[in-house]
């Protein structure tokens, strides 16, 4: 159990709120589609703050216009990876943006052990820090 005020990993847009229901997730997807964003689904069992590349659950859904399609893919991802972290991401291809513009977690493992901080004393009072996930020592697929 993590000791931060939420007791969980706080990445993404809505980690401080109660977990979003499917109806609420769909409203967020609709908002993104209305802005012309492309949705994609990513999952991981290594939620290290600097693990940029979560696994892609299929390609970004560039031509998809209906939130129901994203929800179907999400249901399929949740079924395949019930105890992984899953996030929804929206991409904006507008010139000078061309990046992710929404990202929020929609699935988490039941138990989130979080991270420890390894301190390596080096010269003088300087310390080198390593954020280390308690679950990440186990092999992929058997961490949560």
């Amino acid at each position: 159990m993590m000791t931060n005020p939420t007791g969980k990993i706080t990445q993404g847009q809505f980690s401080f709120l109660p977990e979003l229901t499917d109806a609420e997730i769909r409203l967020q997807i609709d908002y993104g589609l209305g802005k012309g964003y492309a949705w994609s689904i990513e999952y991981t069992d290594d939620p290290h703050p600097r693990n940029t590349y979560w696994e892609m659950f299929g390609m970004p859904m560039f031509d998809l216009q209906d939130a129901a399609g994203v929800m179907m893919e999400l249901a399929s991802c949740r079924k395949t990876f019930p105890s992984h972290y899953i996030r929804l991401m929206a991409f904006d291809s507008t010139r000078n943006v061309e990046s992710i513009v929404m990202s929020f977690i929609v699935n988490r493992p039941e138990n989130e052990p979080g991270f420890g901080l390894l301190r390596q004393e080096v010269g003088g009072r300087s310390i080198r820090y390593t954020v280390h996930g308690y679950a990440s020592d186990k092999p992929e697929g058997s961490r949560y």
Partner: protein
Amino acid sequence: MNSSAIEIHNEATDITGNAKKRYTAGVLKYRQMGYWQPDYEPVATDTVCLFRITPQEGVDPVEAAAAVAGESSTATWTVVWTDRLTACDSYRAKAFKVEAVPGIPGQYFAWVAYDIILFEEGSIANITASLIGNVFSFKPLKAARLEDIRMPVALIKTFKGPPTGLVVERERLDKFGRPLLGATTKPKLGLSGRNYGRVIYEGLKGGLDFMKDDENINSQPFMHWRDRYLYVMDAVNKASAATGEVKGSYLNVTGATMEDIYERAEFAKELGSVVIMLDLVIGWSAIQSMANWARKHDMIVHMHRAGHGTYTRQKNHGVSFRVMAKWLRLAGVDHLHTGTAVGKLEGDPMTVQGYYNVCRDSYTKQDLPRGLFFDQDWADMKKVMPVASGGIHAGQMHQLIDLFGDDVILQFGGGTIGHPAGIQAGAVANRVALECIVKARNEGRDIKNEGPEILQKAAQSCTPLKQALDTWKDVSFNYTSTDTSDFATTPSVA
């Protein structure tokens, strides 16, 4: 022409067509010397400035405008024959339009165009030495203010701009689709390094993305800079582990000399900080040097606009902040304090939105109510993340997000550290308020009007937010702004 007490005589009066007459030794009016060209149409490579001028009693406004063009380019007070050794017609800045400021007698807007040869490539120091140099002390003017500037793409492309930019910053931090949250460590002065780090840790673990040194925290007797950096980075890393998020704290590297500044920045980099901070008072050249350093070391540069009020606050004299923001984007900063509109510091909401546009636009459109007099093509230059900081609290979250959108850092100093249940609770209140308003906005709610209700609902399951809303419910800073935009939608015709 505008109706005003003094009639504007805007006819062409220059005598540059007659070289013998023009270069006879003696004193001529500026408008005779070629600095007033009412028929001039700026070309795409010109820089165009809009000055607000207040001529001394009895000084013809067009002559005053011509004098501004002259004194900010080639002129001296008397005719010099050495002009004739140069292609002086192109070096002269040209005042080409003068209008009375709507509703303010005695003040005039003067448009002046500058040829591209007048400015050194990639140097804000050079641009400012011309445009806001001697001319601002010129006796025939009671006051002068540079209201806005349009710079040509050819000049923009000589600058590298923000070292990181707001898009890349978000990718590095892995934070998207919501404003970032920060807080300035308080009290500003007196905390030891160890106590200071405590505030950083509590704020970041509680849910903030950034903590911040204040502008006058450098290296005083109570806390040496190295001591601060060491404790702060321990707090940052510990909070990152506790939350699973990338966290940062702006380490102010401002120092007495460039050598000090570089030394501090190097140590911040060695300790793994993602961000350093500079105060505006270090000056344009130092800012551009540090932008180069930051590009080389993958560092985000936070600019605290300490001292800007001495340039920007008086409506009749100085430099508008929209011009400062444009220059800072070129000079190369990633974060820039641009006002809150609802907090304790100066700022009319529309005018403040104008500053935000200048930081974040790819192409800024003329927008007179927001004080933007010109179109500005940014030529794909990276965008600056604006920072709203000063006297704001969780209860204003809906107003802030409605005014500024997602690409902004909202900094609640007192609004975090002053929370009755402690710093972590203050951070939680702000983060929950932020997330519930973003969520509601995306769901299609009218946050401007329903904001208080949305916050109250979220507070039912979040005690820290409830405490914050109760504590600061009556706090607002409703003073009349001293810097609103003066414009007439359709100029009146006399």
